[in-house]
């Protein structure tokens, strides 16, 4: 049996990749993908601990997170489309007018 530390290392690695992507990229699609990576890092944690303690709640929760991620992508793609329609490109730094 794989000890839980391995899963934790894997999940934090994936989370940091996702975070790096969000902080550095300007393309909105990269944003979506990075957010997806961070979500999945969290899901790995859930499943790992669920397996560790023999409790199915974590795995059930993982299913919910996957469904949520799907919904998030649906909304996110919509936003990306609107961005493209309004600015002609999908660079997130251009859409900076929604402030004071």
């Amino acid at each position, binding site marked *: 049996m794989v000890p839980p530390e391995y899963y934790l290392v894997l999940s934090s690695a994936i989370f940091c990749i996702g*975070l790096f992507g*969000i*902080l*550095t990229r*300007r393309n909105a699609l990269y*944003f979506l993908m990075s957010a997806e990576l961070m979500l999945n890092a969290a899901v790995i944690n859930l499943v790992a601990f669920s397996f560790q303690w023999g409790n199915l709640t974590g795995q059930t929760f993982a299913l919910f997170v996957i469904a949520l991620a799907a919904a998030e992508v649906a909304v996110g793609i919509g936003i990306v489309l609107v961005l493209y329609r309004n600015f002609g490109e999908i660079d*997130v*730094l251009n*859409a*900076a*007018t*929604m*402030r*004071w």
Partner: protein
Amino acid sequence: MVSASAYVPAIVLLPFVSFIVALFGRENLPKRGAYGGIAATAGSLALSLWVLLSVRNGEAFQETYYTWATGVGAQDWTLTFGALIDPLSALMLVIVSLVAMLVHVFSLGYMNDEGERDLPRYYAGLGLFTASMLGFVIADNLLMAFMFFELVGLCSYLLIGFHFREPGPPSAAKKAFLVTRFGDYFFLVGVVAVFTTFGTAAFAGAESFPALAEAALNGEATVWTPGGLAESTWFTIVGLLVLGGVIGKSAQFPLHTWLPDAMEGPTPVSALIHAATMVAAGVYLVARMYGFYVLSPTTMAIIAFVGGFTALFAATMGVVKRELKQVLAYSTISQYGYMMLALGSGGYVAAVFHLTTHAFFKALLFLGAGSVIIAMHHNEDMWEMGGLKDKLPVTYWTFLAGSLALAGIFPFAGFWSKDEILYEALIHGLDEPLILGAYVMGLLAVPVTAFYTFRMVFLTFHGEPRSSLARDPHSVRWNVKGPLSVLGILAVVTGGINLVPVQKIVPSIEGIDFLHKWLNNDWGGIEGLSSHHYAELDPYSSQYLFGGEVPTVLAGAAVSLGLAIGGLALAWALYNVADPDEHTDKLGGLKALLYNNYYQDEFQVWIADNTRAVAGGADTFDQGVIDGVVNGVSSVSLLSSERIRRIQSGVVSNYALLLTLGLTTLLVVFGLIGGWF
């Protein structure tokens, strides 16, 4: 059997509903609000009479309806609205609602028939005025009384300034409001002082402030006093503070100046203000908390002296006035002076008696004056009148009854009440020089009152008409004659509720001192609020002239009646001729002094001008310090937000960075505190 006590709030709420209806119904109402007002006040009157009967059957009560604030910790005060129904308030309820209803009916003739505009606003004002006065009458604590006292002041402002398109009424309204507010300021401080001293402002019961004050003076209780002041001194100060409000509202010297100007309001409003509401409120307040005032001989003496002085002072000014309503205005100030004289000299019953009779005959005189003013096409100058006797018979005879009552001629209502006041002041004054001085001034005012009253009657109704208006007066309808007749009968017979002198002379007649028994709680009442209890507390002893009570009664009545008849006879000789001259012109400079009200108005303006520096300082303090703090707070937050908002760049990556940094910081802080490292 339903108890009348359950309907006490309705007495106040009915006129209030008529106010709301008139306010929102505007011009669509029948008679533009008049019928609603009449119905509401008639309902109040019916309920008040029922309450009066139930008090007669021993059902006086005190009840708290609503507690709107409670203190915490050691200062466990409760601020409440409640009703105190005892013989005094039950009597006053009937007076107020009766006069208010008659004034509403009269307004049909004076306002509707004369084609005035904005009538819903007028009837809304009348409704609120009546409701606030009724609320003041039933109030069971000083704070509630203060609130309704202020409402009464507000309504008088609204109604005096009813004709706001003309220049006079708005400034008269402002003057009435400001002058009475000046007195009310002391009243407010007095209310706070009562709360801090006694922790309660209730009028009745073992835990009420008069009862606590009495116990404290007997050494049975301790109360807070500022700086260890003696209790009697402090009670005098508190009493005088509350008296400030009374002097303002009841138009006593030196705050009487607003009242003659208040004649700018419509005449029915003047009747209401002078007879039953507003001006009566001050005297009623002293009677309501009389158990507190009798504990302080200094305050009592001041009340008596101010009252006696005002009675004489105002009466002299009434002698020279040209306008009908001006004469009546000064007579009101003078008559309320008598009531204050009675209260100050220990004549609690006499004061309430005069309050009752005065309410009827003064309402009658004002409504009579209103009828004359209708007839004269709104000309009020008595020198333009004359000879109206035959053209306005109902007005003449009722006005005559009211005048005889005002002048104190036997056997009209005013004779009995004024005679009792002077009698009480005399027997208590023989020991106290100050009260005796007040008595002498009250006595001197009697012939002056009779003189100016009958000067007014003769100039208005007798002799030959002195103008074309007086030769062909406008006629008046039932809605003017009806209220006049009711009040005319009352002005003749009200004295019958308290024929004390007769009983003293002929002791075998039983039951003609009804009001004495009534206020003495003979038929039940609230413990500690009886005239008997007050008489035990008051600082006076009675002395009699000529070796006994009966000769004193007879001598007192003979002197005051003789003086009244003397004044009447002088007026008769001078003015009851076909074409009278202005005899007061012979007074020369004195007339100018009287006609200009002893230059009191100018004096007050002079005071105001010379205290402008103080007002300017207060304004600077307000603008600079108070507003400065408020503005400073707002500019600090404006400036800092101008800086801080720059982190809102609108760039989503920056937000993500901030989130990440924030989370990292949180983790580090928790780690340091939690000792993970």
